């Protein structure tokens, strides 16, 4: 197929208005990366279009926050290193410490844990540096991989602290905590 270069301004809006463009008529053979950008496609010009099989959607590194309830405005995945402490005493140390997150819009899923040398902790274990600030109070569950006992996890709005302990308000000794929670941010 012979490719023809259309000069800037070569096709005006009026020239293509109401023109049917058949399926597959525009594909990767015709457009290079970056050739369609915000300067070329105005808001509302793509409305009820069906989007076929995508390979990737890339969001801007800096979120452009939307107040529209139907708009997905952010996606991010990454890691962090949780900082552990304890209530009712102090930890001796931690090992195998890990933290991963995925943020979709205003919802963040956190996976984190550590093998904890519980020291004198008696009322809860705590991380103090969740990667995002909670917008609401919340709760979830965790598990102690050593005993397979379920623990509760909870947090308060406005902070980056997540607490973990047993349902009776005490802690298990030297747990291997594995936490998976969903937080509104």
């Amino acid at each position, binding site marked *: 197929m012979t490719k023809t270069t259309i000069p800037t301004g070569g096709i005006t809006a009026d020239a293509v208005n109401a023109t049917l463009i058949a399926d597959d008529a525009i594909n990767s053979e015709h457009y290079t990366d970056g050739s369609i950008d915000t300067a070329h496609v105005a808001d509302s010009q793509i409305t009820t279009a069906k989007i076929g099989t995508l390979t990737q959607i890339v969001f801007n*590194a*800096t979120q452009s926050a939307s107040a529209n309830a139907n708009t997905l405005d952010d996606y*991010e*995945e*990454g*890691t*962090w*290193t949780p900082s552990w402490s304890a209530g009712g005493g102090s930890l001796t140390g931690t090992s195998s410490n890990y933290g991963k*997150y995925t943020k979709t819009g205003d919802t963040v899923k956190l996976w984190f844990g550590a093998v904890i040398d519980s020291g004198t902790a008696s009322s809860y274990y705590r991380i*103090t*540096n*969740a*990667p*995002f*600030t909670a917008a609401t109070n919340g709760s979830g569950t965790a598990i102690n991989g050593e005993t397979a006992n379920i623990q509760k996890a909870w947090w*308060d709005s*406005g*902070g*980056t*602290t997540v*607490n973990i302990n047993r349902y009776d308000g005490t802690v298990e000794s030297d747990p291997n905590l594995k936490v998976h929670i969903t937080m509104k941010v």
Partner: protein
Amino acid sequence: MAITKEKIISKIEVVGEYKIIQVAYDTIIKEDGTEISRSRTRNSFTPDKDVSSEDSEIVDIANLIWTQKIKDSWQSKLDAE
């Protein structure tokens, strides 16, 4: 072929009533100057944290926004939890 690795601060956000500092870092791998990999790590700092060993950008922001009133307010929140 030269492979390089650098870690940059890609985003610093100050969030909420207690001025929590959220930091996103990108680790970038380049081959002969062309980026071939990028991964994201994060950390957050509450007003009770010692950030003196962090990047100077973070230290400067913390010194600016973490007033004694903010620190006291955060401590009151922790005490109430």
